[in-house]
């Protein structure tokens, strides 16, 4: 029995929420992200902004060069998280097998859900619209890789299904750069070999692919044929949880850096509480990127999670270089259950 995997992807999630909550922005190019001065980076932008060549992860100043009347809204992660939870609650009604990839993206395994999958997905998207006034796109396929590719096909506010019998035909035409793990570099290397589509790649044997790509070659052999056996993992183990900030201008003193800790701390603690993994925390860490772009991490196991302790880690990290600070991150790492899967739980003090 082929599986029925859905990849659900909210359309420009953060930007859509901002437009929903500020109706006067409707129809205008809107982005969410860091402030317009020097160092901010966009997290998301809406389709109106994309027409100007604005992309997510683009530095704000660059986006403003491309689209001078772009409206850049500050991020409101508490709101995004709240909406994300609403959406997850809707998904839970259809299947317990959900693997969230981020706030706005998740895999869902509907193999055990009765009825026509594409009809179910339509209902899910309608429910999301009713509850949140936000649109979602979805891809339906027998595996995760294809579902993810499919969700992009009819974006925004659409859905696309790749049926098992369509896979061969679909793959032949699919550009290799759409495959999992193929970035610009690998794509270029493949292009030099004359490989542009998965169909081109299918002509290579396992051995040839291993010679070219090492172990990843084996995976490529399957992927380019549309084969992907990875299960949807509802409780994919998180290794860490953290929050970080790049500052508009470098921080120049210890006091300035220390003052940033409480806010980062609150964010991480709030996420940690929601994750329900408080008893799984192994260590606390502070990440610092200096003005010369070098970075350092100070990590301590067993530290109780307090602002003061993080500030102590910060002091330790700052003492390693006498440079200004560009970015600060604060986070916790979790115990990784070993192969035998036993983890000592902690008393909640």
């Amino acid at each position, binding site marked *: 029995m082929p599986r029925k995997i859905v990849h659900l992807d909210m359309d420009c999630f953060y930007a859509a929420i901002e437009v929903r909550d500020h109706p006067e922005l409707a129809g205008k190019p809107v982005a969410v992200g860091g402030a317009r001065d020097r160092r901010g980076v966009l997290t998301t932008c809406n389709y109106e902004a994309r027409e100007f060549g604005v992309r997510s992860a683009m530095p704000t100043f660059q986006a403003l060069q491309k689209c001078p009347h772009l409206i850049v809204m500050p991020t409101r992660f508490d709101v995004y998280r709240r909406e994300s939870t609403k959406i997850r609650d809707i998904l839970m009604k259809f299947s317990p097998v959900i693997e969230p990839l981020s706030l706005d993206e998740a895999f869902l395994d509907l193999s055990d859900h009765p009825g026509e999958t594409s009809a179910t997905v339509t209902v899910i998207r309608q429910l999301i619209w009713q509850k949140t006034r936000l649109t979602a796109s979805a891809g339906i396929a027998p595996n995760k890789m294809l579902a993810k590719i499919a969700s992009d096909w009819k974006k925004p506010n659409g859905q696309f299904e790749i049926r098992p019998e369509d896979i061969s035909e679909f793959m032949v035409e699919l550009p290799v750069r759409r495959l999992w793990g193929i970035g610009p570099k690998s794509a270029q290397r493949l292009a030099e070999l004359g490989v542009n589509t998965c169909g081109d790649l299918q002509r290579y044997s396992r051995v040839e692919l291993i010679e070219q790509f090492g172990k990843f070659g084996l995976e490529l052999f399957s992927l380019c044929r549309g084969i992907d056996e990875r299960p949807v993992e509802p409780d994919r183990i998180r290794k860490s949880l953290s929050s970080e900030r790049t500052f508009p201008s470098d921080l120049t003193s210890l006091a300035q850096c220390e003052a940033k800790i409480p806010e980062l701390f609150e964010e991480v603690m709030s996420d940690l509480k929601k994750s329900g993994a408080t*008893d799984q925390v192994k260590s606390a860490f502070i990440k610092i990127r200096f003005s010369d772009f070098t970075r350092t991490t100070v990590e*301590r*196991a*067993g*530290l*109780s999670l307090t602002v003061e302790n993080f500030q102590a880690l910060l002091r330790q990290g700052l003492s390693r270089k006498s440079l200004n600070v560009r970015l600060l991150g604060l986070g916790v790492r979790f115990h990784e*259950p*070993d*192969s*035998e*899967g*036993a*983890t*000592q*739980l*902690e*008393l*909640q*003090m």
Partner: protein
Amino acid sequence: MKFSVSKDKLLEGLSTVQNVVSTRTTLPILSNVLLQAVEGELRLTTTDLDVGVRGRVEAHVERTGATTLPARRLFSIVRELPAAEIYAEVDTKNLASIRSGSSYFKILGLPEEEFPPLARFENAKEFSIAQKDLKDALRKTSYAISTDETRYVLNGILFSFKENKLTAVATDGRRLALVDLELEFPRSQEIDVIVPTKAVLELQRLVKEEGDVKVSIGENQIAFELNDALLVSKLIEGNYPNYRQVIPAEAKERITLEREVFLNAVRRVSLLASEKSNSVKLIFSKGNMDIVAVTPDVGEGKESLPVMYKGKDFSIAFNPEFLMAPLRNLPNDEVFLDLIDEMSPGVIKIHGAFLYVLMPMRLS
């Protein structure tokens, strides 16, 4: 100064104080024992600046005075001396001459003035506790002290003097041992202090079954006076975590066990607990408890104990060391294991004011 003392008594006095002396120290004076000859006795003091111990031995003092001598060296010399009586004389340059039978030793010391004085106690809060009770409380809790230096407030035992009770608590964040002692004192004396591990270890060496110990708590210092000794220690600064909140209010299941039988069974089974996961599983079914340990690719160990258990089938995993530690340190024949579910803390209790909270291990 000039005195004579019995070899056995001096040896006993030195062994009381010499544990405190640090082997590696940047301050040479801290390797030395302070000797003070006063009327009818010889006082011996050592310190590492955090913890200090003073003992005294009966001596025939011809000329009073004081000096400091290398503690370990003095101890090894005294131990080897051939006769029962030791004669010692120290000149103004701190050169000590020690005679006993056919032996004659000269040791160079350091002046008394260089020795850091033990803390003084003014306006201290004072308590009197039966040594037997204190010894018992230390034994039942000290094994749970954290050795993780990053959690320094847990590197000691909490002594909480509240509501006519002394509560001693030790935890490492995974298990927690607690003893309550009835003790009368006025409300104004109530105080919480954390006594560091090193002082706890020294105190355990000093306490006996008979007599009382006088406890004085001053500004960031604590002193214990017992028998012929005085132990002074710095306290750990900081707030002890709110340990009350980890003690489960009530148990769903109570299993009564013979302490020794349980301890021996866990010890045997734990031979097959893997180094990696280091866990034993307690599996309950009607009237029975299986203790199981498995190491993949090696084998498994299992013991079955008949127990009064009527609940539904259920299993819970613990670190065997954490399970055995209280069992080794309790005198009782019978212990109770209170459980809620496989993710909630288990509690070991006895007939008496003791409890041990232990977090289980999660198996995936």
